[in-house]
């Protein structure tokens, strides 16, 4: 069994950093806050590596199968006997891998931020938020209970909100953080209802029990669940779809991706951490976590997952080809790559060779974390140097930023899938899985793969080649010193070498070992396409020319649509502003003030009106009073003599 204390420390150290810096940051360590947080993160990362080592190599597997284990769990909130939210640590291959990824990337970002964020006023707050984010993400990956996932899922959302909005006095940052939160929140609604459905069907919230109950054919729960359906779709499928919607929101899948490009308003290291390496893969992780349910109980939904992933991958790739803000290009590339992971899950089956997609997705998640973080951090160095995000303002930086240049190139090669860099291996497995299961998706993936290579090198050449960058300001600080270079180098090593890890030995859909091998003949086509993409990019962007403009003009409409992100943002704005805000919201507010409140006030007005109407009764004439008197007597007498005996 893994050591509970160590796992707890991995999770709690970032939380401690958050609390320490959040509550006392300003007064205790205004300057040194970053160092403290980084040290804590370092410990956490080391412990994570240690745990991984222990899990994979010391406890090992029994009969080649890595088992899930829950070293610690408490009942956090009991709903009724049998259903409760439990908080615990679920240790299995994917959570251990994620532990490593999250802590490692987070550590890199911490270190990098020491340099990048130097001179920012609210440094302790920044590191506190990083700590909070890391804590949430770790809680998410270790969750033993689907509700625990949801809890940390939300916390991840809020820390991303805080980090995107870190430059809170920039209106665009404020808008972006709101957008990110609300869009993912919308998706979370689906997740929540999905959880409710699952909990009702399985009568538990613990992953292991839940999966066990819902995947065992003939179990009571499955039978019961089968009796419920809505609109012709079984309850379980609804649950799975809704949970996937939650994942799609976090993972920026089409059409819930609109927040991701805007989220680049946050500090660049944050983008690296959250929007490249960790948070956005939460959706993938969630599907992977519930993979048996998807694969066994609701294979139809898995198809949807696959298609959503594929569509997202290609749409994002197309858009990425036209964007000029380097962070946005990277953002769309992230979306595209996550689409890869998603459809890899979608084209997988449960168990054995058929589960290759699953392994590939996790593998790609791992490698992608390395090179995407590297890309973002590299972009950060560039932005740090240029103080601008726009590709057009850059060029020829390979001399000024040599280390950045090299590492960035490695990352580009990795993402483009050029052997022997990490991306090649993982992407190869994904393509293989797609090829085996769904040819349509395979072809989409191939095209996307080519496009990936193209837009990455478009980015690379625009930054580091082309017309040399003019030095506008006197103040230059090169590559930002050791703290900024170190993460680049470490990540570059990862991006270059991670592909050689025999991932199938550790992570498979059913826990048993999976041997994967690279087939040269199969790899020719994708690698060729990638090289073609690189070549076109070289032709268009290596030297400053009007070729890009001409190409853009020649495909006209498509280019424009892609440049405007296929107008998806506009559709959203229409729905939210016009329909929800101005339509329903204003209607509700008006209805409340005018109709509901109006009715209440009307009661008062009516009473007063009646009161005014009958005032003539009190005429001041004593004879009139006597007349009423007599009339009263007569009426009463008649009533009680003749009518109401």
């Amino acid at each position, binding site marked *: 069994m893994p050591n509970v204390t160590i796992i707890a420390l991995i999770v709690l150290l970032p939380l401690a950093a958050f609390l320490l810096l959040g509550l006392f940051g300003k007064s205790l360590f205004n300057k040194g806050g970053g160092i403290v947080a980084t040290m804590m993160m370092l410990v956490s990362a080391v412990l994570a590596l240690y745990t991984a080592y222990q899990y994979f190599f010391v406890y090992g597997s029994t009969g080649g199968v890595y088992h899930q284990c829950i070293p610690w769990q408490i*009942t*956090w*909130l*009991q*709903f*009724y006997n049998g*259903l409760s*939210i439990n908080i615990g640590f679920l240790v299995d291959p994917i959570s251990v891998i994620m532990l490593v990824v999250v802590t490692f990337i987070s550590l890199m970002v911490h270190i990098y931020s020491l340099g990048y964020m130097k001179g920012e006023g609210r440094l302790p707050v920044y590191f506190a938020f990083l700590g909070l984010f890391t804590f949430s993400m770790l809680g998410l990956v270790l969750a033993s209970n689907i*509700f625990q996932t*949801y*809890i*940390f899922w*939300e*916390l991840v959302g*809020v820390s991303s*909100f805080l980090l995107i*909005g870190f430059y*809170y*006095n920039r*209106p665009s*940052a*404020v808008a972006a*953080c*709101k957008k990110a*939160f*609300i869009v993912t*929140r*919308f998706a*979370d*609604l689906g997740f*929540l*209802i999905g959880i*409710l*459905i699952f*909990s*009702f069907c399985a009568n538990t919230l613990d992953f292991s029990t839940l999966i066990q109950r819902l995947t065992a054919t003939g179990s009571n729960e499955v039978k019961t669940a089968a009796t*419920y359906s*809505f609109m012709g779709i079984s309850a379980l499928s609804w649950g799975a779809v809704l949970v996937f919607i939650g994942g799609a929101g976090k993972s920026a899948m089409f059409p819930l991706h609109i927040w991701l490009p805007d989220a680049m308003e946050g500090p660049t290291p944050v983008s690296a951490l959250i929007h490249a390496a960790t948070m956005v893969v939460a959706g993938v992780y969630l599907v992977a976590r519930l993979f048996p349910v998807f694969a066994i109980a609701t294979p139809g939904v898995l198809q949807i997952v696959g298609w959503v992933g594929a569509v997202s991958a290609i749409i994002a790739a197309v858009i990425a080809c036209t964007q000029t803000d380097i962070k946005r290009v990277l953002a769309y590339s992230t979306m595209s790559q996550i689409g890869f992971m998603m459809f890899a899950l979608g084209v997988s089956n449960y168990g054995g060779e058929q589960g290759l997609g699953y392994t590939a997705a996790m593998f790609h998640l791992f490698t992608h974390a390395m090179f995407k973080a590297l890309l973002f951090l590299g972009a950060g160095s560039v932005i740090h140097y240029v103080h601008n995000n726009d590709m057009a303002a850059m060029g020829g930086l390979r001399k000024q930023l040599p280390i950045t240049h090299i590492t960035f190139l490695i990352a580009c090669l990795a993402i483009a899938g050029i052997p022997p860099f990490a991306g090649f291996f993982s992407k190869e497995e994904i393509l293989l899985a797609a090829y085996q299961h769904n040819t349509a998706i395979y072809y989409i993936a191939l095209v996307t793969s080519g496009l990936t290579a193209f837009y990455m090198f478009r980015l690379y050449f625009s930054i580091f080649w082309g017309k040399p960058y003019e030095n506008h300001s006197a103040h230059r600080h090169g590559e930002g010193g050791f703290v900024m270079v170190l993460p680049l180098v470490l990540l570059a090593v990862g991006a270059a070498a991670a592909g050689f890890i025999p991932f199938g030995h550790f992570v498979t859909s059913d826990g048993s070992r999976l041997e994967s091998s690279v087939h040269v003949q199969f790899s020719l086509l994708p690698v060729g396409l990638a090289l073609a993409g690189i070549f076109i990019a070289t032709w268009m962007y290596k030297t400053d020319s009007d070729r890009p403009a001409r190409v853009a003009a020649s495909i006209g409409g498509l280019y424009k649509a892609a440049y405007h992100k296929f107008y998806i943002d506009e559709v959203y704005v229409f729905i939210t502003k016009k329909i*929800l*805000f101005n339509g*329903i*919201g*204003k*209607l*509700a*507010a008006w*209805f*409340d003030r005018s109709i*509901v*409140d109006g*009715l*209440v006030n009307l009661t*008062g007005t009516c009473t007063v009106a009646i009161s005014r109407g009958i005032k003539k009764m009190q005429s001041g004439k004593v004879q009139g009073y006597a007349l009423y008197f007599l009339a009263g007597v007569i009426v009463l007498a008649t009533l009680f003599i003749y009518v109401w005996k």
Partner: protein
Amino acid sequence: MNLLSLILLPLLTAVTVLLCRGGQVKWVAFAGAVLQLALAVALMVAYSHQRAAGNIAQMLFQQQYLLFRGVNIGLHVGVDGISVAMVLLTSLVSLAGVLVSWKIEKMTKEFYFLLTLLALGAYGFFISLNLFVLFFFLEISVIPKYLLIGIWGTGRKEYSANKLALMLMGGSALILVGMLGLYFTAGHSFDILSIANMPIPANTQHLIFPFLFVGFGVFTAMFPLHTWVPDGHSSAPTAGSMFLAGISMKLGGYGCLRVAVYLLPEGAKQYANIIIVLSAIAILYGAFATMMQKDLKYMNAYSSVSHVGFSLLGIGMLTQTAVTGALLQMVSHGLMTALFFAVIGMLYDRTHTRMVGEMGGLLKVLPFISTVLFIVGFCSLGLPGLSGFVAEMTVFVGAWQTDDIFHRAATIAAAASIVVTAVYILRAVAQTTMGPVKNEQFLHLKDAAWYERLAAMLLVAAIVGIGMAPGWLADLLRPAAEIITNRIAGK
């Protein structure tokens, strides 16, 4: 544990407030509020201790005195988990209310007197086991509210105060009728525990239930009888709003549950669907209406309508989990909304505006207040780790237990509000605290003073405490809720 001390202590405080002069007043009120909190905590401890020791009586620490012999009316007090939680809530909010009013200058003595009276009413209400006494304490709180709004309020205060008093009075009129109906059908007794043992014919229950539920519903701002809420809150002084939303609206919810649902289970079954529809409407409609508000207080008032809808939804679902959730929501919303109003008050004291559009960038000048605003906003939109999440999730899970399309639809509609909530909360929080500083004068503002910090931290601590470790509160509430729902289930 003598429960009467919960009534006597505020009474003593109120009298002392009247007797002392000038600057002493607020210190006396403060001391009183602290003692109340201590008492409430002591009650909680003693209660848990008793339960842990295996005392399984439905109500603990009972005391009974016959007051009006001929009509069989007496003071009967006792607490279960629900009451304990509500008493704690009351003491917390009232202490915070005293603190945020520290700088009040107009008629200080009267202000604190009325505030203490309000707390007194709430304590009495929550510990009463006699309908008559319960009603007495419920009514006690109406006039202090009226005066607090009318004298220390802002804006259209007279109108709002009037509306509040009249609508609440209307509610109590209905309660009164229902109460008398119970009295006559249940053997001339107002005692909740003995009424509960009386067999009340189903059609009588159907007749009486609407009176009681709607009556208490007015207090808890049940749609469509919520219109006193926006006006009342927006006009009330800060502490007044805190009390109104934090405690008074809970009186209604507690009454709905303890009186209407508990005593009339058949009636509850009969009308459950209507309650569910109304509260689902309230949740969504309140949320949408909130989205359009420009005044922070109106915003929080409408969001209260929406949030309180969760309580009523939970009650309407009639399952143990949902009812527990409803109670959690009552506690959570009480703390959260009190804090929200406190923050709005602090902002208003400084910027002299409550319009969202006129603020901006306050995080820079008022970091503490803004941070609290963030926290309360996150609580409102149901962020895990804060109390709102726990309550809403419990309601959802409980609501999901009843498996037919109607209950499902209502639950989903209610759940959908978490998105709308996120929209309006973020909009408000972001517009006030983020972005560039809108007004040059804001740059000279001073952040929260010690009393404000204390008040805010008190409530934040409670919110976070419940959010992080909801188990103890849920365990406190669940057995009591179970007794109520078991009656409905006919167990």
